[in-house]
């Protein structure tokens, strides 16, 4: 608690700034939504035939996940404040339009008839009767929209528009609860405050409607140009980094010192970052060296010529409890050790990111080719080969063996992995058989987690197939967990049994090693692995199994053609270019 207060006090300037940004985003988007939604709702009451289609469209917009909407807007309006306001505006539209429509529709028919019968014009009926009587319903809509907007505005931090989401996402990325709370608590208070403010405004609406309208006009016509327009034209050269990279010790702060480089940065969602670079909204990003989109989008990876980025070797991270219960896991994963190269991983990622193949299919194909490559007498490898083969024929007979809900950018996608589904009772691996085979033990299930990017989805599927095909264990997938912290917490709490993790992340984020230890081992991949293996076991009873082979480290990348044009190949080249840009 005291550490939280300490954090608040030491970051109060940032919190204040983010809160102001947050209010700005919310209020401006809301003002536009009211300006457009209110007349639209009124219009619908006059042309009722339009109402189902218009309300339908706004309803559909409401159901689009926020990150997906931001991603959809990216090619058109880029990143920053403009798309944030557009997204918030779209989310605020439905409650306002629908409540205006409903509020006016529900005014007592006899009151409207009396009003018209007395000689009021349509406009007078609207102004003196319908709107005043619909005020409570309309305000309920605006208040709903406000609360939605305060919530969604946190997500807008993912596209570099600022706001309290910056703290929240950095906090999640860094496993820093104080930082999360420093964003989440002001956001919650803000929602309550704005809601309360609106309820007060509702009481005095007749008196304050005119100044309010004037203020809204001012907001829309004065502030927006000042705010939005510069964001369209500014920034000669801009970097888009994820919240995680911006805050981690091995991320931007250290990078800046190591290379003595300084560049304009904006914060971006990891999923949107590549698109932002492709669409020329930013000029350099911090991607991952195995990302399939590097090839897909023709990006140039800048060589880390001063060896800044630490090693990030991927390996399965398993609960000790699980491993003791199912020692077979150790054998199974040892067969994967060193089998996936950087190139191989990038290729698998490319197939999902660019060719839009299903991660599960890619995983399956990989294991097939692996089997082909592993042909011949290889000791324990035979187990894998044999079982994999026999199981392989089963695939075709089980039509529901496919993954639904594949959402690369989804917040959370949980899927049951049922080769042994009850709908295929003939399968020798159905739960009944499994329990017989294990000597009448209760149903055994392994839960595999993954973070929310392509590589993790593929690895999770590879792990799942490997286990299912070579043991009687049943596998459940909980893929798409949003970030390292969530994944790690799920593992520690036993909600998942294992997930693919990277040694560098383990060292710097999960174990948060002391600076001295860290700096002494940071550039040596073996030392890093040994350290995280020993420390994870000691502190959390978690086991790092054999590394898979590839090193998915941070990598700066640019658009290929721009890099070529500017003759930038290494990070030092980039530094030279930027220094010269600011001279």
């Amino acid at each position, binding site marked *: 608690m005291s550490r939280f207060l300490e954090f608040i006090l030491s970051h109060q300037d940032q919190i204040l700034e983010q809160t102001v940004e947050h209010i700005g985003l919310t209020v401006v988007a809301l003002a536009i939504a009211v300006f457009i939604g209110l007349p639209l709702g009124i219009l619908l009451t006059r042309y009722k035939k339009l109402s189902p289609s218009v309300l339908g469209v706004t309803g559909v917009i409401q159901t689009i996940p926020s990150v997906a909407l931001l991603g959809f807007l990216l090619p058109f309006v880029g990143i920053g404040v403009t798309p944030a306001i557009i997204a918030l505006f779209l989310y605020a539209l439905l409650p306002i339009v629908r409540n205006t429509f409903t509020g006016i529709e529900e005014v*007592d028919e*006899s*009151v*409207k*008839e*009396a*009003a*018209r*019968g*007395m*000689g*009021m*014009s349509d406009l*007078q009926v609207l102004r*003196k*009767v319908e709107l*005043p*009587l619909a005020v409570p319903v309309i305000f309920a809509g605006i208040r709903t929209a406000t609360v939605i907007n305060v919530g969604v505005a946190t997500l807008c931090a993912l596209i570099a528009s600022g706001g309290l989401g910056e703290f929240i996402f950095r906090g999640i990325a860094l496993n820093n609860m104080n930082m999360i709370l420093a964003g989440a608590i002001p956001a919650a208070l803000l929602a309550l405050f704005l809601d309360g403010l609106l309820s007060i405004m509702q009481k005095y609406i007749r008196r304050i409607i005119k100044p309010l309208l004037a203020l809204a006009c001012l907001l829309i016509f004065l502030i927006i140009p000042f705010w939005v327009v510069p964001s369209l034209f500014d920034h000669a050269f801009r970097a888009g980094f994820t919240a995680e990279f911006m805050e981690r010790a091995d991320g931007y702060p250290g990078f800046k010192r190591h290379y003595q480089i300084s560049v304009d940065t904006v914060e971006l969602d990891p999923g949107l970052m590549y698109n932002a670079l492709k669409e020329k909204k930013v000029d350099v990003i911090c991607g991952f060296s195995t990302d399939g989109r590097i090839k897909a989008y023709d990006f140039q990876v800048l060589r880390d010529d001063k060896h800044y980025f630490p090693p990030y070797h991927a390996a399965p991270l398993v609960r000790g409890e699980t491993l003791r219960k199912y020692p077979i896991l150790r054998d199974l994963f040892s067969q994967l050790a060193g089998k996936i190269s950087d190139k191989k991983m990038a290729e698998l990622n490319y197939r999902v990111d660019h060719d839009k193949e299903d991660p599960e299919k890619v995983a399956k194909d990989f294991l097939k080719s692996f089997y082909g490559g592993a042909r011949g007498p290889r000791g324990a490898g035979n187990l894998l080969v044999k079982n994999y083969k026999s199981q392989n024929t089963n695939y075709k007979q089980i039509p529901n063996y496919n993954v639904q809900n594949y959402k690369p950018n989804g917040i959370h996608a949980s899927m049951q992995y049922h080769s042994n589904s009850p709908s295929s009772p003939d399968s020798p691996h159905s739960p009944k058989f499994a329990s017989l085979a294990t000597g009448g033990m209760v149903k055994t299930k392994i839960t595999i987690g993954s973070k929310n990017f392509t590589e993790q989805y593929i690895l999770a599927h590879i792990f799942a197939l490997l286990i299912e095909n070579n043991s009687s264990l049943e596998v459940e997938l909980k893929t798409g967990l949003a970030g390292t912290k969530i994944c790690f917490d799920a593992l520690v709490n036993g909600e998942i049994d294992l997930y693919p993790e990277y040694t560098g992340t383990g060292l710097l984020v999960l174990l948060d090693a002391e600076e001295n230890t860290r700096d002494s081992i940071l550039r040596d991949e073996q030392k890093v692995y040994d350290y995280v293996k020993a420390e994870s076991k000691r502190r959390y009873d978690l086991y790092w199994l054999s590394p898979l082979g590839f090193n998915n480290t941070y990598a700066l990348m640019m658009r290929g053609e721009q890099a070529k044009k500017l003759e930038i190949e290494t990070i030092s080249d980039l530094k030279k270019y930027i220094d010269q840009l600011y001279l």
Partner: protein
Amino acid sequence: MIEVTDLTKEFNGFTAVDHISFLVEKGETLILFGTSGCGKTTTLKMINRLIEPTTGGIRINGKDVREQNPEELRKGIGYVIQHIGLFPHYTVEQNIGIVPGLLEWDKPRIQTRTRELMEMVGLPPDEYLGRFPEELSGGQQQRVGLARALAADPPIVLLDEPFGALDLITRRELQKEFKNLENLLRKTMIMVTHDVFEAFDLGDRICLMDQGKIQQIGTAKDLLFSPSNECVRDFFQTNRFQLELQVFRLKDILPELPGEKFVPDNADIMEFEDSVCLGEVLESVEQPSLKKSMLKIRNSFDNSVIETHAEAVLSAFYRIKSSIMS
């Protein structure tokens, strides 16, 4: 004067009002009477253009309503509806002041007029001005509704079942007051109702409608004693006796009264104006002792007074009735 010519209204192929024509003289009250769905409300709403006719025309004082701006037209026509439709967010005072406000009267004038109208409809202004509709009973609300319709003193008033939402006692009470409102005496009025007693009591003439067509237009007596067809006759069959007593006034039977002077010592003498209808007279005497109930009737023509008893009134009624029927 309201002139309706060959008026027709169709809704999606259904003919609600079927080629009707009638004329309402200045100062006259015409009742549009019939069962629900007969087209009477549709007819009424075409007069102030809340519904536009399919064919046919309506002229008010010789001017076609369709050549006038509908809002301007409506400001000159009082309008009272069954569900009253008071503005729930306006006080009684604001509700009554709506039309004067639309006509841009100055504030003091609206205030004076509002108080005047509230006195008229029996709501003490000081007590009721600041109240909201939800704080009033149904009867009080319709009084406000009536005051609102009369606020700008329109020469024409349209009433759509104005007492329809009220309980029977309140309804009769309001009808009685309504009949005696001086403000309404000179008005040209069209009232829609399905209450036959209300129709007979308040209308100068009654327009009986059925299935969009006019079956007969005439005074209550015409409809009762010379129905134009079976349909009209059937309409009044159930309440015939009561209706007959209602359409005759003491004035109608005066020539038939013997004018006896005998006054028993212990009898209460009730006094009636000759404009009172027979039904009301008989309601106020005790049925078993018709002979003992003495009445004093003031002849409005020469101001003479006749004393008689209730039984004589009843037999005079029968004599008159049989003379009309034959």
